[in-house]
């Protein structure tokens, strides 16, 4: 693919991805932290022990720091004195398309950017952050996986990585309105909250929207959806292109500004949350005129304010999978436990939970990348082992990708454990009929 890209000089209007463009992207990305991280790696291998892809395959090529080899080579060659000397004397190893092709599965298929490696690194190297940087060069050199390319194209062109359009959501809205007897507010200027969804929720978990409608009606929260932007997932972040990411973030900002909302709620999708909350202002280069929350944060605030009145308790033995983007990368750990306490009397945490939890294996674009299917299921074995340790009746989570992966994984390994969304569970326990 890259071969043709390099040779397509006949059509000047069609920009082309090339090795050189990829290297340029890396030159842009290399900064002081990158240099510090590469020079301080002590090759202890702890990151390998923290990575589900390594732990479950045992293949040393899945050692997280090793996945950064192409970027490290460029840094050494062009940004260090020793590397420059080595290059001049002909001792440096080449960075060519063959290398990038070999590394593509390492950077995309076997990394969910869950950040566990960054957390355990004894010298504080943020490996996950550098994977994100390395992906910039991979896209620009034409070495991104097809699944993610297609998702990015659809996200930009249709507004959703799964190709969903407003009319599909509209059908779901009608269902929700019929089922709940409530009205789903659309394009309400001046609402307190703009609610964003992920395509996965619209298609796989429509009960989420219904739950929100119920809870917000119960707590008298003023909210709205926007016809101009309903999707918060960001394929640009996953594929590793800040340009694509910026287009998608800008769409959210425009919609929120147009409606004049004070707050934006990210959907129950892990990377959408970190994408819009943490990475967004950086890719568009300015601060937002509104705040961004995950729905779980909003619900916990409502709980703390006494605006969630629930009745009845779940008696099943319940456990929870913390999405890494939420717990490890954003520190949302206690909120979901407060909410659990509200409705579950038999809750048990996995041994490693909160910021130490093991990734489900599907995030960071792995689930959009068909080639990675087998690895994704391999990585899930770590989660499976965690689940088996405590044998819950049901699992609760708050990320559509995690939830899909948990459901698929449990089915694959024939474990009969249902997975539920926390928001829906809260909605089921609301005290009905009385005004708050």
């Amino acid at each position, binding site marked *: 693919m890259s071969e043709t*890209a390099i040779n397509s000089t006949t059509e000047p209007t069609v920009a082309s991805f090339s090795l050189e*463009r990829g290297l340029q992207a890396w030159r842009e990305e290399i900064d002081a932290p990158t240099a510090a991280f590469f020079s301080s790696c002590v090759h*202890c291998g702890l990151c390998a022990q923290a990575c589900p892809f390594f732990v479950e395959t045992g293949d040393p090529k899945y050692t997280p720091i090793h996945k950064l080899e192409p970027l490290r080579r460029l840094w050494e060659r062009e940004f260090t004195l020793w590397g420059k000397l080595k290059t001049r004397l002909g001792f440096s190893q080449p960075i060519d398309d063959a290398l990038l092709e070999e590394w593509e599965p390492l950077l995309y298929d076997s990394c969910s950017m869950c950040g566990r490696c960054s957390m355990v690194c004894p010298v504080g190297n943020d490996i996950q952050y550098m994977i994100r940087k390395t992906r910039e060069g991979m896209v620009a050199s034409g070495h991104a996986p*097809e699944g993610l390319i297609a998702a*990015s194209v659809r996200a930009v062109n249709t507004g959703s990585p799964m190709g969903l359009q407003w009319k599909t959501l509209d059908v779901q809205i009608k269902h929700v309105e019929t089922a709940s007897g409530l009205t789903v507010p659309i394009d309400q200027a001046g609402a307190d909250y703009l609610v964003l969804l992920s395509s996965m929720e619209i298609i796989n978990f429509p009960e989420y929207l219904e739950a929100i409608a119920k809870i917000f009606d119960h707590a008298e929260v003023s909210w709205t959806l926007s016809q101009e932007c309903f999707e918060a997932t960001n394929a640009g972040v996953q594929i590793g292109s800040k*340009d*694509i990411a910026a287009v998608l973030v800008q769409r959210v900002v425009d919609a929120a500004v147009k409606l004049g909302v004070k707050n934006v709620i990210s959907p129950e999708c892990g990377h959408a949350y970190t994408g819009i909350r943490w990475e967004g202002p950086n890719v568009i280069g300015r601060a937002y005129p509104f705040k961004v929350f995950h729905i779980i944060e909003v619900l916990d605030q409502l709980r703390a304010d006494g605006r969630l009145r629930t009745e009845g308790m779940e008696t099943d033995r319940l456990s929870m999978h913390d999405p890494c983007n939420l717990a490890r990368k954003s520190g949302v750990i206690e909120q979901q436990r407060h909410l659990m306490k509200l409705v579950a009397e038999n809750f048990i945490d996995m041994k490693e939970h909160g910021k130490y939890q093991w990734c489900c294996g599907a995030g960071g674009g792995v689930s959009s990348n068909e080639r990675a299917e087998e690895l994704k299921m391999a990585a899930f074995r770590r989660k499976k082992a965690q689940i088996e340790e405590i044998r819950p009746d049901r699992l609760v989570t708050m990320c559509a990708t995690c939830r899909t992966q948990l459901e698929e994984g449990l089915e694959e390994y024939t474990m009969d454990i249902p997975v539920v969304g926390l928001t829906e569970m809260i909605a089921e326990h609301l005290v009905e009929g009385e005004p708050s």
Partner: protein
Amino acid sequence: MHDRPTLGETLERQGVSRRGFLKFCVTTASLLALPPTAATAIAEALGQARRPSVIWLSFQECTGCTESLTRSFAPTLENLILETISLDYHHTLQAAAGEAAERAREEAMHANEGQYLVVVDGSLPGPGANPGYSTIAGISNLQMLEETLAGAAAVVAVGSCAAFGGLPMADPNPTGAVPVSKVVRDKPVINVSGCPPLPMVITGVLAHYLTFGRLPELDEYGRPLAFFGQSIHDRCYRRPFYDKGLFAETFDDEGAKKGWCLYRLGCKGPMAYNACATMKWNGGTSWPIESGHPCLGCSEPDFWDAGGFYRALSVPTGDIATTAAVGGLLGAAAGGAAVVKTRRAKADAISAHRPITAEELEQQL
């Protein structure tokens, strides 16, 4: 001796999983800067090892070293080690007192003749000093050390007092204090200095000894190189400010607030060799420089008498200074040129950036 359970068995009984144990071994290997494969060796050796007997002697000290080891956060390496060694004598930690305590020490010495480890914290009044300055059960420190050493395999001097004399030996040294190494002649001594030493350094040394049956590689002061191989300065997160020449001049000026280098406030980071900068304290929470105080160089010999704590390190005088200055200038010029060049490469890349578009991506499908 052989009816003692192995470490593996002891850990299992205490509910430490195989996984937890392996994690400990991997961490230890990495702390000791051994290759990852060494983790397996450590695991095998520790799993098989009989609980070794350790006699811990405390002389002229403040118990800070014991505190450092025991106040670390559970469940950590330190606890693992404390639970796996057979700590047969330790003033602060043992329940026994008086004659019973001394008997425990003697019994441990006889039962493990030639194999036990002696850990010492605190310095002791030297051979020429009045032994009455520090005695335990009527026995002078020197006598107790010599007695205990006779059948020991090796001595670990924990803390700067035991390693280098520390505070008791500070000028004018009223008790005639000497470090352990001054008294020991025919046994290997390892100095784990620091006031107090990092708990992970203490356990790392013990784990190394248990695994390989010998002490780790040492520097010229008898300290394990793995932990004392690099200066605080080289690993300091404030180093970029030093390199840029940005210094805090007082404890409450703008520079201090901005987290600039504390060199001029007396930081001994450049001459202090220890692992605080990377391992930190209190379960990785912070370390002196991070809380705004210059490094005292507590792991270095005679740190109490090495000029004022708040006086900047002196600059060499005479020819050395000229040479260093010229060399420094040349180095700075070359380094500066290299920085300018790489910065330009980055700036060029940024200005040449062609945004990636969906259309372009679509071409690839």
